């Protein structure tokens, strides 16, 4: 007999701590994780994900699946913002549409981690190179979003702020969280190639501590998400619907791409989760800087207040059954 996978997902410490955080807000507890402690955990998680991913990539090498999967990942993060943009334009101006769409084209590293934890608890294997897909999907969506602004925006933007290609690349590749993830991945790769003892010495920090730090961070994310949620009301029901519909839609496309790529159920879920998740770190930071005309409360409250909790609590198990249905277990 199979236990309800949603319940099983919810009963894992990371999700439980997320819920605790959210409930504390609902019940008006004064539990608070003051700045910059959340930043500490978010920096730590990016560094550790990147480092471990770099090691895995170096270890597993580049097998047949790697290149097609990574290419498909990049493609998805280029296509999704375009679809999102078209949908959002029904209701929003170019600036807001582009910014929100970019967030949904990009990814959430913590959602990815949660999916990994879910797979581990279900004893389903997945490959380390999927972190490469994670890293590669952050920037393209930002680039697409900024290009949409550059070409579709009204021509009366202040000159001094004109978006040059160099600025676009700068924001998409040198954004703090993108940069830390990518460069930690490189450090992991180089360490694995040339200094294997360094891996052992990093393991307690980047490996053993990871799960607990994830829980602590999710406690804060629960608080933040529950504080953000009410502000979505001002954004209107269109955006609220979008914040739930879009991840499901992206997951749906994603699962067929995963099937086409012949990914196993583990990698398949991770691929789908990357498509379905939305960025609340890299993209908002880049958009605030380059598209100040967009309302930050739109793109941050949808991703953080609704899409993220949805994915963490319900999405991952839903996507898992989607993966199990669409991707034949033995191809």
């Amino acid at each position, binding site marked *: 007999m199979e236990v309800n996978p949603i319940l099983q997902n919810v009963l894992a410490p990371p999700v439980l701590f997320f819920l605790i955080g959210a409930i504390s807000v609902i019940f008006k507890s004064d539990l608070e994780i*003051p*700045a*910059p402690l*959340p*930043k500490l955990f*978010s920096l730590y998680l990016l560094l550790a994900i990147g480092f471990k991913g770099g090691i895995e990539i170096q270890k597993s090498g580049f097998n047949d699946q790697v290149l097609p999967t990574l290419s498909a990942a990049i493609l998805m993060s280029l296509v999704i913002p375009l679809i999102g943009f078209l949908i959002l334009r029904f209701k929003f101006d170019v600036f807001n549409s582009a910014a929100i769409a970019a967030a949904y084209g990009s990814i959430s590293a913590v959602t990815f981690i949660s999916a990994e934890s879910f797979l581990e608890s279900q004893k389903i294997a997945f490959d380390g190179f999927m972190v490469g897909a994670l890293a590669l999907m952050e920037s393209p969506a930002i680039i697409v979003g900024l290009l949409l602004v550059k070409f579709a925006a009204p021509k009366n933007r*202040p000159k*001094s*702020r004109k978006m040059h290609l160099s600025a676009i690349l700068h924001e998409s590749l040198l*954004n*703090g*969280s993108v940069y830390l993830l990518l460069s930690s991945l490189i450090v992991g790769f180089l360490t694995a190639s040339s200094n294997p003892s360094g891996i052992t010495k990093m393991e307690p920090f980047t490996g053993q501590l990871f799960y607990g730090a994830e829980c602590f961070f999710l406690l*804060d994310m629960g608080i*933040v998400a529950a*504080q*953000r949620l009410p*502000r979505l009301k001002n954004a209107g029901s269109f955006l609220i619907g979008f914040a739930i519909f879009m991840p499901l839609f992206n997951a749906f496309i994603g699962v067929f791409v995963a099937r086409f790529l012949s990914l196993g159920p583990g990698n398949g879920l991770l691929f789908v989760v990357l498509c379905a998740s939305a960025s*609340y*770190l*890299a993209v*908002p*930071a880049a958009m*605030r*800087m380059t598209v*100040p005309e967009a*309302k*930050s*409360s739109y793109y*941050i409250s949808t991703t*953080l207040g609704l899409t993220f909790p949805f994915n963490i609590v319900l999405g991952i198990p839903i996507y898992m059954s989607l993966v199990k249905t669409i991707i034949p277990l033995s191809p």
Partner: protein
Amino acid sequence: MKRLDLIFSERELDAIIKTLEKANVPGYTVMKHATGRGPERVVTEDMEFTGLGSNAHVIVFCEQELIDKMRDNIRDDLSYYGGVAYISEATPL
């Protein structure tokens, strides 16, 4: 002597400091991690870890003429990203 209070997104801090330095202000003080609400947006504490950036509060004690010199540049900086600037009287101790 005047006191100039600037409150704006910390993302704009480098630009503002450049403006101040170009005008040769005798000095300035920066306090980060301010939050708040303006006519355009709400700035909350979670903006620090998301990288959106919270506000910076900059205080400059200087002569009126320096302020006149900087006025346009500062307004420019603030108009794009939002923020407020107020002048008041101040006497050195």
